[in-house]
Structures are given as structure tokens and as C-alpha cells.
């Protein structure tokens, strides 16, 4: 009973407690500022994890599933990126942005074929010689 009476008193007291008149004017703006500040100062992976795990929050057992899925995705991304960079070093058909000098071409193995490497920019055409036939005296 004592506790019920104390709670009733507290509620009566709180009923007459009012914030400053300008409190509600700045409330929304201040809330958004704090929200942004929190986002900026938190690491990206932390935010991503929170959002990802919130999808499974209703079921505590799903948190484990979420964690393993997230880890698997990170590992798969890393492996893919590493494989791509290795291929870029070895593949003949790759963009090479390192040097404009890569636009210079060597002789091609067959008529009109460009060299088997991807050039970094536009390749301006002017061959070193016209086409010709091995046998010129046949008709």
C-alpha cells in the first residue's frame, strides 16, 4: 500500500511538471543532430551489423545464423576481389590504366586483329603497312 501511495504522489507531482517553453521548439532538430552525430562517430561495420542483426532480433536463435551469414559474405567478397586482381595481372584482355604508353601497339598476329591486350584508352588506327598477299604473281 505504501508503495501504491508513493507512486500516486509521484504521479500527481509529475502531472504538474512541465519542460521549458522552448523545449518542444528545438526538440526535433536536436534529436536529429544527435542521431547524425552518433552515425558519424560509429564505425561503418558496427552500423551495418546493427541493421543486419535487427532483421533477426525477434528470434534470438537467429542471431547465430545472422552472424555466420555475415562472416560468410565477408569471406566470399574478399576471395572474389583477390581472384579478380590476380586475373587482371595475367589476363590478356584487361584494362590497364597505369600508363598512356600502353596505347602503343605491336604488330598483330593476323590481318586487322588488334593485339591481345586491352588498351587503357582510345586506340587510334594507322597501320604500319597495307595488306598484301604472299604470292603476287598468280592471277
Amino acid at each position, binding site marked *: 500500500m505504501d508503495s501504491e501511495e508513493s507512486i500516486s504522489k509521484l504521479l500527481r507531482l509529475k502531472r504538474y511538471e512541465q519542460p521549458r517553453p522552448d523545449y518542444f521548439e528545438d526538440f526535433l532538430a536536436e534529436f536529429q543532430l544527435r542521431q547524425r552525430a552518433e552515425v558519424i562517430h560509429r564505425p561503418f561495420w558496427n552500423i551495418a551489423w546493427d541493421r543486419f542483426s535487427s532483421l533477426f532480433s525477434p528470434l534470438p536463435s537467429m542471431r547465430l545464423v545472422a552472424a555466420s551469414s555475415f562472416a560468410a559474405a565477408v569471406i566470399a567478397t574478399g576471395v572474389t576481389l583477390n581472384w579478380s586482381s590476380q586475373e587482371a595481372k595475367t589476363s590478356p584482355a584487361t584494362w590497364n590504366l597505369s600508363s598512356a604508353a600502353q596505347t602503343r601497339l605491336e604488330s598483330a598476329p593476323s590481318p586487322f586483329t588488334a593485339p591481345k591486350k586491352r588498351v587503357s584508352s*582510345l586506340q587510334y588506327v594507322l*597501320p604500319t*603497312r597495307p*595488306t*598484301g*598477299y604472299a604470292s603476287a604473281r*598468280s592471277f
Partner: protein
Amino acid sequence: MWALALLAPLFPLSLGAADQSTAQSLCSELGRIFEQHRRSVVRVYATDELGVRVGSGFFIDPSGLIYTHAGTVMSAEDVKVSFGGRMTPAQVVTIDERNGVAILKVDCASPFIPIGDSDQITNATPVILIGFPEDYEVSSHLGMIAARERQHLGKYFATSHFRANMAVQRGEGGAPVLNLAGEVIGILMARIGDGTACHILPIRAAEKTRQDISRFGELRPGWVGGEVEDAAAAHAGSTAQILTLGPGTPAAQSGLKAGDVILSIDGIPVTRSEDVLDAAYFLTAGDLVEVRIQRDGETRSISVKPTTRPVLPVETMALGN
């Protein structure tokens, strides 16, 4: 006497003025040709799995037909041409590996450069090239025809080319070369050395490609099936002697024989074995041609119907930027 003495110093001045007038007239004419035809020259962009190749080309008729360099559009998945401040998709009508010419088509009305007579071009003829060097705007070059050549560094061309002393740059492959009448007489095919000289395909050789497409919808280079060599002595002014005839070839079936000396093929004179190169280039499969020969001291005419030329090994063509 006094009057003559006073006029004498004026003669050199008069000649100088005449020279200056001639130079101004030439410059004016070159500028007029450039301004008249610069809008008929296009930049060609061809995209394939290796990147984007860029060359020059030009309209040859008002319906949007374009000559360009085969090396630009070969194996391209997408071809566009840029002219008049706009980019337009282009269809590759044909690519002729023999002469290195490609024909494109865009769906719009277009300005065009009239076709000249490349057979009339002689050595020391001044010519103008209009093209797109690298990423610069359309530019002109003045040069001079040095000679007609059939080979370069020991390798024969499919047909003879002009060698011109004219500085050319990357990106201008397929650009038109004009005479001083403003007619196209050739297409820039290749640079020589560091680009201070070049090889130009005579426009008549490119027109053979267009004629085939126009008549048959496909290329039909003709082939007779004979081999020639130079005889020790000339007969009726020619040393081009038939060495062999392939069995079952049009040459063998027509009645030509080994040892016959060829005097002309389809009206094109032959005086030595190399002349066969140009004469054979213009043969069309299925079209009867007259071959004039000298046999046993007699001149004869034999009709031959060429078949489609078999695929011969084409020499490597370096795009060499």
C-alpha cells in the same frame, strides 16, 4: 636608255609579286577544298572486347555510305561515326581484307566527296588529306605523290598503292586523299616509318569493293588460276610468261598454256610479271575477261571466266599505333 635603266630594277619586283600571287592563290584553293569537304569526313569509333579503336572515314554518296579503314572496324561489336557534332550508329556493310577497306552505312542524308580518277594521278602530284589525328579536330595535310608501289619491304600489296610524302598521324587511317580538284583519289592505309610518308590505296581499288557489293551483295574477287614469271626475253613487249596452270582452273579450261606470254588482261596492259598483280585485282568472279597472249609468235585473244578467288594467306597487318 634612261627609261630602261630606271625600269630594270622593277622586273625582279614584278616576278616576286607574281610568285606571291601564285602562293596566295594556292593557299586559297587549298583552304576552299578543306572547307568544302571537311564536313564529309567522319571519325569512326569501333568497340570490341579489347577496347575502342578510332579512325577516320568519309562519305562517298548522299545516302550515308562511308569508306573507312578495315582495321578500325574489324571484329567490332559496335560502330559509331561522329560528324556534324553528333554521334550516329553505323552498320558495317562489308570489310574487304584484300585492300583493307570497309564500307559503313548510316541512316541519314550526308554530304559527300566526289570520286576522282586515281589512274590519272602521276608522280609529283600534290594531294590533300583530311582526317582526324588522334583526339584533335578535323585537320588537313598537304603532300605529294612520290610513286606507285607494288610492295613494301619485300611484301607485295594486293594492288598497287600510292606512296606519298605527307606527314600523317594515328587516327587518320581511312582518311580521304584529294586532288586539287577536290575529288577523292585515294584512302590513307598506312604510314611509312615514323609517319612522314604514307601508303594510299587508289580510290579505283576501293571502288571495286563497292561495285561488288552493289552488283552481288558480296565480294567476288576473280581468280584464273595461273602463275607467271619473267621470261628471259620480251615477246611483243612483254616478259610475263605463264609458268604453270592449276588443273581444272579457269585458266586451264580456257585454253591458256604454260609458256604463253601475257600482253594484257581485261584491257590492262601487262609488260612484266608484276603487272599481273593489278590486272588480276580487278577481275570479278563470273565476268568474262579477254586475255591477250603471244604464242608461237602469234597474238591471240582468249576468253576466260574467273571463279571466286580462293582464300590466300594475307600478310600480317600491324595496326601499329
